[in-house]
């Protein structure tokens, strides 16, 4: 039978009993007294009604509390899972995997910074060396131009010698040979010089281009890469700060989730209030049964006077049990309300837990996205700069190698020019000798000889300048050439290692963070679902209302009996002293029951408590010393 149907049946029965009681009372008027008279069946009906209701109440509350206990056990299990997830998240955040990952990233960024610094250093050195080579090559322009002048003057002197000495018949052959020699020498020097000029121009262009590349790399990409690495470092610092905050937040989540689990366990403990109420209700039921037995006994004896006294006694007892039942209902209702409030509070706490989890998850995801964007940009820039540096360094190495090899050739040409200078000195000597042989016009040859002598000195001076400049260029270029090629090879390896290391590291970090975010999502979902279920469970608790309705009916039934006999109760012996009432008091197991009893029927020391050699306080103190709680007595 459903609760509703049963309640309706009880209400209907109540109406019938009240009607019957009214008839009985009316019938009794003028018969024995004003008091109503009930036959045995009527008594049975009246007394069994609250008894049946209390049985129903017990079944209802036990069923509801068991069902509720099962829900709480499920909540506890789920809260424990959330708590374990929170601990796992905390472990991941503060664990070696995470802190180790951050340390590795810090090292990676420092490595990138060092790479960029090294590249800038090397590129700077190359830039400066190539600048010096270009400057030195430019400085060769002056002696080369002067050599142009020397060769031009040699050609003029050669022609002049032939013209001026055409009349010297006795020395004609010698002077012609001298003239031819001077012109030939001029052509030879001019040939060498042209070759040197061409080579210098080529070297200058090559060196200038390499210098421009180095300069562009140094001031462009590597400078930008330096800025990007600095940004990555700053983002990493932010990540470390976020990580510290995440540690605190995850610690807080772990504590909150553990508190939730603890709260559920406490609520589970509170369902034992049902048992306290159950015992109180059992005491009421037992009292009603005792009334029934007393009535049966009285009917068997047939003593009407005794019955009147018994009816009054039962009226007192029903009034008393009505109070006890009311108190039980209030205690049950209060206990259920405490549970409902605790559950609502718990639901709010779990909701906050889910919200905090979501916030921390969002922060982590945002931090991760910012960090990965920055670190990937930094790595990309560094790799680009390193790769471009390789190409530039290779170009510079080529230019420098060309400088070294070409300079060596040019030095050889300059050495030839120096030999031509010595030859010019010989020609000048020959011209001097011829000027002595020819009498007329000898002075002209003397001037030519002096001019050749001057040019020879000038040629030697300029070739020396050329030689010195070329030796210096070759020397510095050779030094740079060795260093640069070594660095290029080393950087090549560094780029490969950096790319490989960073790929591995970022993959690991992404996996760790993906796991973390997945745990966050699970915890958020589980906590959110738990909060909703707890809320629904709290909102659907109606046992206090259902039990309250039954208790109210039981109280009404007890009060009905009491009212029928109490209204005309005559002064008699003290109510609390009757055997029936004494028996009821002896059934109590709770202080609240005894207090209500004494308040209703008058206090009496019906049950003499015997003192024990050791006081209760001593037992409780002993339990307290063991940390067992104030409600424990340790014997």
């Amino acid at each position, binding site marked *: 039978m459903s609760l509703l149907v049963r309640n309706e049946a009880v209400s209907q029965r109540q109406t019938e009993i009240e009607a019957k009681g009214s008839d009985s009372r009316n019938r009794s008027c003028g018969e024995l007294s004003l008091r109503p008279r009930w036959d045995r069946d009527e008594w049975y009906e009246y007394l069994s009604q609250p008894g049946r209701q209390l049985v129903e109440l017990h079944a209802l509350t*036990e069923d509801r509390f068991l069902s509720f206990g099962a829900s709480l056990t499920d909540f506890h299990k789920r809260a424990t899972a959330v708590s374990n997830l929170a601990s796992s998240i905390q472990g991941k955040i503060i664990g070696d995997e995470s802190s180790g990952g951050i340390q590795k990233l810090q090292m990676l960024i420092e490595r990138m910074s060092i790479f960029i610094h090294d590249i800038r250093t090397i590129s700077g050195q190359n830039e400066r060396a190539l600048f010096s080579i270009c400057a030195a090559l430019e400085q060769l322009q002056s002696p080369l131009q002067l050599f142009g002048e020397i060769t031009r003057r040699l050609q003029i002197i050669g022609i002049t010698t032939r013209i001026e000495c055409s009349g010297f018949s006795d020395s004609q052959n010698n002077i012609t040979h001298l003239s031819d020699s001077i012109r030939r020498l001029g052509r030879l020097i001019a040939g060498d010089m042209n070759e040197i000029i061409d080579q210098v121009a080529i070297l200058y262009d090559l060196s200038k281009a390499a210098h421009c590349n180095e300069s562009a790399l140094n001031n462009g990409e590597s400078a930008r890469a330096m800025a990007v690495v600095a940004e990555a470092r700053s983002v990493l610092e932010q990540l470390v700060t976020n990580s510290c905050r995440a540690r605190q937040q995850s610690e807080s989540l772990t504590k909150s989730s553990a508190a939730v689990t603890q709260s559920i*366990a*406490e609520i*589970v403990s509170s369902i*034992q209030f*049902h048992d306290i109420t159950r*015992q109180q209700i059992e005491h009421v039921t037992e009292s009603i049964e005792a009334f029934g037995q007393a009535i049966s006994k009285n009917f068997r004896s047939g003593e009407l006077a005794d019955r009147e006294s018994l009816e009054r006694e039962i009226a007192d007892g029903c009034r008393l049990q009505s109070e006890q039942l009311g108190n039980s209902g209030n205690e049950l209702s209060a206990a259920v309300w405490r549970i409902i409030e605790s559950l609502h509070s718990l639901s709010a706490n779990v909701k906050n837990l889910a919200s905090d989890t979501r916030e921390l998850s969002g922060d982590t995801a945002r931090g991760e996205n910012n960090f990965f964007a920055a670190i990937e940009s930094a790595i990309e820039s560094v790799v680009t700069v390193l790769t471009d540096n390789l190409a530039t360094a290779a170009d510079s190495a080529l230019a420098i190698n060309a400088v070294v090899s070409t300079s060596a050739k040019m030095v050889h040409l300059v050495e030839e020019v120096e030999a031509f200078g010595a030859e010019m000195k010989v020609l000048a000597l020959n011209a001097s000798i011829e000027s002595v042989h020819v009498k007329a016009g000898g002075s002209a040859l003397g001037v030519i000889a002096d001019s050749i002598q001057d040019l020879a000195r000038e040629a030697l001076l300029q070739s020396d300048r050329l030689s010195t400049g070329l030796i210096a260029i070759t020397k510095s270029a050779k030094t740079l050439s060795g260093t640069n090629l070594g660095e290029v090879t080393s950087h090549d390896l560094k780029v490969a290692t950096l790319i490989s290391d960073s790929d591995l590291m970022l993959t690991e970090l992404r996996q760790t963070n993906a796991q973390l975010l997945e745990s966050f999502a699970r915890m958020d979902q589980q906590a959110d679902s738990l909060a909703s279920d707890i809320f629904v469970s709290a909102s659907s608790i109606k046992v206090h209302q259902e039990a309250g309705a039954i208790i109210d009916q039981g109280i009404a039934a007890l009060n009905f009996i009491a009212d029928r006999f109490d209204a005309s109760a005559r002064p008699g012996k003290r109510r609390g002293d009757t055997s029936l009432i004494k028996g009821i008091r002896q059934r109590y197991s709770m202080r609240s029951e005894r207090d209500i009893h004494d308040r209703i029927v008058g206090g009496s020391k019906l049950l003499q408590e015997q003192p024990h050699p050791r006081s209760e306080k001593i037992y409780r103190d002993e339990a307290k010393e063991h940390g067992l*709680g104030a409600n*424990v007595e340790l014997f």
Partner: protein
Amino acid sequence: MKIKNREILHKKILIVDHSLIVRKMIGFALQGSDYEIIEAADGVDAVRIIYSQPIDLLVTAMDMANINGLELSRIVRETSGLEDLPIIMLTQDENRVLKNEARGVGISLLISKPFSHAQIFNLVKEVLG
């Protein structure tokens, strides 16, 4: 007080209470602690269990039908081999006479309802060592 220093693992605890809710609640408090929990709804059922298998701890309510907690404890104490079985008694009775009787029977601990799950867990741990 009789507190035994035994291993916690696989200890058998008999919980006797008329209320299924109280038995479930105590079972909940002790879950995951490697104790084996056996339940009895009254003293008669408890005696049958005690005579049929070894028990390491008896947790019994005082107020029960047929054989109450005090009578059950007396039976245990009078049974050969169970003289030292630790007994925790659950009560909501403020009656000093009954409490004195409990002490006389040789109850280890008496705990008044309501109690917390942590409290019952700690008590069991304390008693079983």
